[in-house]
């Protein structure tokens, strides 16, 4: 079953390179992602046992992140069909500087998209940390061509930074893996998660700490934690909307999973205090960085990217605080992925209509594109954690856990940065939705609002609102299971 889960996108991705008809290729994309989602759901229902010693298996933590990835990818594939057909007839004029550019061949784009899904699936199901590393690096390599879909200078710059910074970062994670191996060399633990966990108590603590640091910095680079986040705003702002959505909603989580696996071993070895401090420190640092850069932001896609950094900071903080905060962090991961993907989808519609990413030039969304405007504003309320929203619940749980655990300074800083982010985002979103629409002479050839591009976002937003009001039992079970794995026992 799990092998099938990786093979479906892998094979259909390879097929996509060979198909020459656009319609069929897009059909394949939607079909493959629907099949992937169906398989994921069946795994959620059946919950196959983990065979010790196997390289692939799904525990609650992996299952949670697999679910997010699969749902998000399905939404993105539905969005992609319309998006790509728009792109086909778009002259390819640069939105801000007005030069003409070409797009990547669609076969390469869809092929890489599916292979990217396969690699992300491999990350979530890996039980061997070496395999996990290889899969994370594969996601970097396969998503680089996606960022360079619009072939022009800025996307190329973003691609280069992404490729280099993430590859180097992940190389450090490889070193971390080897350190982990060195920590267990006497015990003969290897890099298999099961055996590492069962022998956690006899691992060499000095090597284990060094390993955790390297893994944290390595996967943290990919996850976008400050101060290793520098590639993230560039890549998110220059790539096509659906790729930004996948990077932000699915890929960052996959990198986080890498860190969580390392934390699992450390918690097993009794180093929870050590890892917790690191999580809290970098979590707050990311929150601060995001708050600073959101305040003066002029580009709405970069703004969303910084908001992702903020949320990655929240996840890290939550895991660091432990206890109930871990539940909050994982719930926040689910809700953030859905919300942020939806927001990026909507931003693609805005970009297509206004032809600019500059916040100052987008005005009067409500008048010009009413449905888009409503979704954009709804997204703002959800992402900042206005109730009812899953993000609100997640943030609240982290706050209460921080106060209950006596982390008053962290709680105060957390609240302060959240308030700054709220104010910064609020100004931008309100500026964009209200006001007079510019009397552009180009009104005749506007693509308008495509329902197919808005429906995925609307569905995601509804899910997030529902999460804020009612948590289905199966989801609670999985999050609890995942929380126990990272040592957050209430």
């Amino acid at each position, binding site marked *: 079953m799990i092998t099938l889960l990786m093979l479906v996108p892998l094979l259909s991705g390879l097929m996509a390179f060979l198909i020459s008809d656009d319609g069929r290729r897009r059909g394949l994309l939607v079909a493959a992602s629907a099949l992937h989602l169906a398989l994921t759901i069946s795994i959620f229902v059946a919950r196959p046992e983990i065979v010790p010693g196997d390289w692939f298996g799904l525990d609650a933590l992996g299952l949670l992140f697999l679910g997010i990835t699969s749902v998000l990818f399905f939404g993105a594939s539905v969005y992609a069909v319309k998006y790509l057909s728009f792109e086909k007839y778009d002259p390819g004029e640069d939105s801000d500087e007005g030069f003409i550019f070409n797009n990547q061949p669609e076969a390469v784009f869809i092929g890489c998209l599916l292979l990217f899904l396969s690699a992300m699936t491999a990350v979530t199901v890996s039980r061997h940390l070496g395999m996990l590393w290889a899969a994370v690096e594969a996601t970097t390599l396969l998503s680089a061509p996606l960022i360079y879909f619009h072939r022009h200078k800025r996307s190329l710059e973003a691609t280069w930074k992404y490729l280099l910074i993430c590859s180097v970062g992940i190389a450090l994670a490889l070193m971390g893996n080897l350190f982990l191996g060195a920590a267990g060399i006497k015990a003969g633990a290897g890099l298999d998660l099961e055996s590492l966990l069962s022998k956690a108590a006899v691992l060499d603590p000095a090597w284990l700490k060094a390993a955790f640091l390297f893994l944290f910095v390595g996967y943290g680079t990919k996850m976008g934690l400050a101060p290793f986040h520098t590639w993230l705003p560039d890549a998110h702002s220059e790539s096509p909307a659906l790729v930004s959505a996948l990077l932000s909603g699915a890929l960052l989580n996959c990198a986080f999973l890498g860190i969580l696996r390392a934390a699992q071993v450390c918690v097993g070895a009794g180093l929870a205090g050590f890892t917790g401090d690191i999580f809290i420190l970098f979590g707050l640092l990311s929150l601060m960085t995001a708050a600073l*850069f959101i305040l003066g932001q002029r580009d709405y896609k970069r703004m969303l990217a910084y908001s992702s950094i903020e949320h990655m900071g929240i996840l890290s903080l939550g895991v660091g605080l432990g206890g109930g905060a871990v539940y909050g962090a994982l719930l926040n991961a689910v809700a953030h992925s859905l919300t942020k993907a939806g927001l990026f989808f909507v931003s693609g519609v805005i970009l297509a209509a206004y032809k600019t990413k500059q916040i100052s030039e987008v005005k009067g969304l409500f008048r010009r594109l009413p449905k888009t405007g409503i979704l954009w504003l709804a997204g703002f309320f959800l992402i900042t954690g206005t109730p009812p929203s899953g993000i609100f619940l997640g943030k609240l749980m982290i706050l209460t856990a921080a106060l209950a655990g006596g982390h008053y300074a962290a709680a105060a800083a957390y609240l302060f940065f959240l308030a700054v982010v709220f104010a910064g985002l609020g100004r931008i979103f309100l500026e964009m939705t209200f006001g007079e629409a510019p009397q552009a002479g180009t009104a005749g050839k506007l693509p308008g609002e495509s329902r197919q591009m808005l429906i995925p976002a609307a569905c995601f937003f509804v899910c997030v609102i529902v999460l804020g009001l009612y948590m289905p039992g199966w989801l609670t079970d999985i999050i609890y299971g995942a929380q126990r794995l990272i040592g957050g026992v209430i």
Partner: protein
Amino acid sequence: MHTTAELIIVAIILLDLSLAVSGSLATCIRLAAAQGVIAAILPLLAGSGAPESRAVIFSSTVILLKGVIFPWLLTRARVKANARKDVEPFIGYPASIILCLGAFAAASWLGTRLPLPETTRVAWIVPASLATIFTGFLLITTRAKAITQVLGYLVIENGIYVFGLALFVEQPLMVELAILLDIFVAVFVMGITIFHISREFDHIDTDELSQLSDWHPQRDGEAK
């Protein structure tokens, strides 16, 4: 036996220093390749007894990759991109070498803090590996060209390899091959990207890739 392995460690450290002071791009490519090759020989010597056939196959794959394919790819990228022949460092060579020596001192200290388990008897593996990783970072951060950044990535990889394969020859082959495949594809994709950069910008100086940033107030609409 182990003296040979220790000689290799010394050679790797010396190659780090030469990478830090070498001004010619072509030489740097060759130095990094040489380092990759001798690092690949290391696991064959570090174990006790005759190396297994598996280890030999794996080492020869690495030698082929790092000694032949990567230098060829990078030289091709350099020629295609019509790059200047020197590495254009942002800091002087004396500063580079001092940084490198400092890194080696720090790495030696760290090495004493992280004692290796008994299974390996090769001294200086940890410091050599950390110093090589640092040299890689130095190449990435203080040299102007995109190719030197890829080179830096490879040197980091060499450093990791020195540490890893001297210790864990018993890793599952699949995992090692997956890792190697990743590195190969990474260099390949970076090579393609360099080609695109040179076509799009007419140079491959990454310090001029600075349009995307939040630090400079960005041009406001009217500017080109």
